[in-house]
């Protein structure tokens, strides 16, 4: 989300789900939200059917939403930036930009303009494979709509140039002034239920709660005083950097609360090896996950159903979570376990209940300052909410962009770190399934959800399957420069020639043994969406999928 923070001054979704109803045109790029954000997916279908919203889906795969869309553009994975610059080119060439908005609310327009100069529809067609007429049509639709919104997700960010992709998205909004109004904005959909909150709370290596940078002296002093401790001025390591530091022996101990990196990290073989170098691994979770099995100490934690507290959703809505059940056995609240260790280490954290923590947090987190449990009530409130009389902020950048001036970014298309070659001729791209969730620790235990998605397939186009002599349900071996997996093939018209697709929920055939851990230099997000692989029919000894055991695990 570093891209949007740089260009607009805030990395969060600018609109609310509800006000997206006002969009005349909606570009949905790199977001298979029917599967990843199902209720948003439902709303989009509703808008298309009953409000006449014209949806343009941009996705290498034929996603479910395509059937409700006005237009589907399918660039090869990794070419989104070229396409986005192509739209900007057309808008400028046809004079459809919002000159008054650019004048008043933006900067760096000229540099941006000269970069998109060369992205003619013809050139972009040769790069991306998207017909130039579709590029022109989309650009016109977006630019001439009264309100237009862009929605995007991991399909845009999980690339070695994800930050630039995001900036190119924000360029379009700035160019047309599609910001700060109902139905107009730039909307990253956050994946897991409380990603927004984990970031807001400073669960990141470079910021304290409320995105206050750790390297800025005033911030550090403020928190040192507030917490009565001396704090480090060096930004910490990101998750993928941590793995490398473990491998190099620089990281000796790791404390993991409720995450399962042994399944979700790119390049699993490397991750597993790195974890073995640790002197101490502590895992706090509700189940014995792949990662917990490797731990020296495992703490049993409460699940959401046993917790009081708050979650912050993708539209910045802070909502109350309420305790419905008693913890199983002796399991404890996550914060309470941490508090116990802190106390033993000489820093007592005497919170009695979740609300005490919230009240402490909001004293030092300006965006949350005006929120109280009482005010959150049934519907929650959307941050920023600076004081207790403030009604919350459903739409960001209203009247004025948070950054002051919106920053146009001059970003060039660059090829993905790995492009197909003769040895690894296919592009592998990854995604999620509607019935499953991230590492399946939770969903894998729900019978109904498992029945629907018992193992994950490799989707292959019928053309490629034909050439390789692969039939539906055959075992295939997919191999990258980092490892291989064996899985069943599913011949599908959802993927195009040269591209294969696999979901990443199960330990068995974990697709992340293949993916490329190369990072976006700014956001440090790995390139999960594009790796070069080769594919062959697998005739080796039968592989009994451990799916039952594994996804139950």
């Amino acid at each position, binding site marked *: 989300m570093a891209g949007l923070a740089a260009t607009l001054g805030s990395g969060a979704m600018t609109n609310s789900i509800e006000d997206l109803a006002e969009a005349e045109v909606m570009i949905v790029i790199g977001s298979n939200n029917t599967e990843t954000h199902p209720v948003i997916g439902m709303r989009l279908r509703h808008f298309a059917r009953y409000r006449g919203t014209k949806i343009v889906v941009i996705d290498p795969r034929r996603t479910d939403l395509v059937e409700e869309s006005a237009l589907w553009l399918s660039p090869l994975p990794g070419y989104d930036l070229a396409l986005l610059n192509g739209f900007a080119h057309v808008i400028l060439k046809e004079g459809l930009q919002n000159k008054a908005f650019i004048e008043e609310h933006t900067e760096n327009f000229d540099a941006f303009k000269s970069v998109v100069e060369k992205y003619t529809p013809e050139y972009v067609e040769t790069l991306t494979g998207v017909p130039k007429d579709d590029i022109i049509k989309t650009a016109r639709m977006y630019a001439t709509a009264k309100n237009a919104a862009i929605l995007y997700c991991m399909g845009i960010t999980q690339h070695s140039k994800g930050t630039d992709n995001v900036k190119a998205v924000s360029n379009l909004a700035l160019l047309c002034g599609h910001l700060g109004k109902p139905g107009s904005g730039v909307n990253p959909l956050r994946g897991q239920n409380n990603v927004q909150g984990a970031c807001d709370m400073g669960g990141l290596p470079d910021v304290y709660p409320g995105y206050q940078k750790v390297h800025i002296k005033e911030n550090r002093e403020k928190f040192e005083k507030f917490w009565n401790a001396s704090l480090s001025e060096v930004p910490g390591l990101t998750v993928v950097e941590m793995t490398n530091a473990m491998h190099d022996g620089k990281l000796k101990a790791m404390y993991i609360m409720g995450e399962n990196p042994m399944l979700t990290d790119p390049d699993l073989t490397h991750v597993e090896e790195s974890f073995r170098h640790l002197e101490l691994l502590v895992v706090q979770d509700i189940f014995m996950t792949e990662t917990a099995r490797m731990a020296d100490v495992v703490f049993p934690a409460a699940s959401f159903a046993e917790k009081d507290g708050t979650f912050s959703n993708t539209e910045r809505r802070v909502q109350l979570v309420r305790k419905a059940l008693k913890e199983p056995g002796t399991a404890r609240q996550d914060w309470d376990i941490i508090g116990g260790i802190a106390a*033993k280490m000489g820093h007592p954290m005497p919170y009695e209940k979740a609300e005490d923590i919230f009240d402490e947090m909001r004293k030092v987190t300006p965006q949350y300052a005006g929120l109280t449990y009482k005010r959150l009530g049934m519907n929650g409130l959307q941050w920023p909410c600076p004081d207790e009389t403030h009604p919350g902020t459903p739409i960001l950048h209203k009247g004025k962009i948070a950054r002051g001036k919106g920053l146009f970014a001059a970003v060039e298309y660059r090829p993905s770190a790995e492009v197909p070659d003769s040895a690894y001729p296919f592009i592998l791209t990854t995604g999620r399934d509607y019935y499953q969730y991230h590492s399946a620790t939770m969903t894998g235990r729900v019978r109904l959800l498992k029945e629907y998605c018992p193992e994950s397939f490799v989707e292959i186009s019928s053309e490629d399957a034909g050439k390789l002599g692969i039939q539906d349900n055959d075992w295939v071996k997919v191999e990258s420069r980092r490892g291989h997996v064996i899985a069943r093939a599913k011949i599908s018209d959802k993927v195009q020639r040269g591209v294969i697709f696999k979901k990443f929920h199960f330990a068995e055939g974990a697709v992340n043994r293949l993916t490329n851990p190369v990072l976006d230099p700014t956001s440090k997000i790995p390139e999960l969406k594009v790796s070069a692989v080769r594919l062959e029919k697998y005739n080796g000894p039968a592989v009994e999928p451990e799916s039952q055991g594994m996804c139950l695990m």
Partner: protein
Amino acid sequence: MQMIIDGKTVIAEEGKTILEAARSNRVFIPTLCYLEKLLPIGSCRLCIVEIQGHENPVTACTTKAFDGMVIETNTPRLREMRKQTLGFILQTHPMDCKLCDVAGRCQLENLVKEYGAEPPMPKRAHKAEERPYSTPAIRYRPDRCIACSRCIRSCREVVGRSVLDLSGNGIGAKMDIVAPERCISCGECLSACPVGALTHANLPDGVSEGAKKVATVCAYCGVGCSFELNVKDNKAIKVTTNDYVGANKGSLCVKGRFGYGYVNSPERLTVPMIKKQGVLKEAGWEEAIDYVASRLAEIKGKHGADSIAGLTSAKCTNEDNYVFQKFMRAVIGTNNIDHCARL
């Protein structure tokens, strides 16, 4: 604009239907086929009202209110007509409320009681019927269906899937599953059903009796849907929704509506464990906390604070996350904190 409802002068918003105008003024007009989030169809004919100067009653859900309108919602004539309408429904609908999971919360049952309705003709012996539905998550009992089409319209208008449709008409009308392959098991239809024709497949009849509802937020994806976890005997037994709250206004996906079971799982961790000779063994809380605290202190002393790192969680609450990063920063002394959200 102004109108008179049951003799009272009330203010209503321009462009509203009579039903909306009445509800916004707390006048209750009975309905069965109406749901606020769906387009009104006026098919159940329970919301009939009389407009001064009009011979025949009209359905309030499909008739726009206008300034100066004078309406009656509860005359003896209307009551008699509603009683008859309900009687017709009872001709085919079983009256085995005692066996029904929605008993007590059933909109039909409540109206029948209020109006004292009875089937016009003697009922034939009723045969309970159960048929496969478009998803195994939902139990479908066609004999209880009153053809209000709320499920059909929810699936079409709210979810955009069009799995269901109505076939036949009049008293022979019934719901049909026309495109089961398009079903995403979201349960929008289940929550729209005013009677017990669609119920939670995992629940034997009567189980939700006495369950407590706790309003909370889904723990799966970033939409953050609100729902009520229904609990009984310290077990989550089902999820219900409220059409008027949160980001989702009553809609959920399969994970939110049917994916809560893991919290009851016997595989949940219940005691701390410490690895001894390569094997994780159960330990006491004291012991485990002491061990972790002393090992962390030792490693920090030997290799410095930056040799320790923590992964916080996008599945935990804000409060957990705040405490975790505070612990890493203020107690351990490092900024090595991240979570897997990038992935």
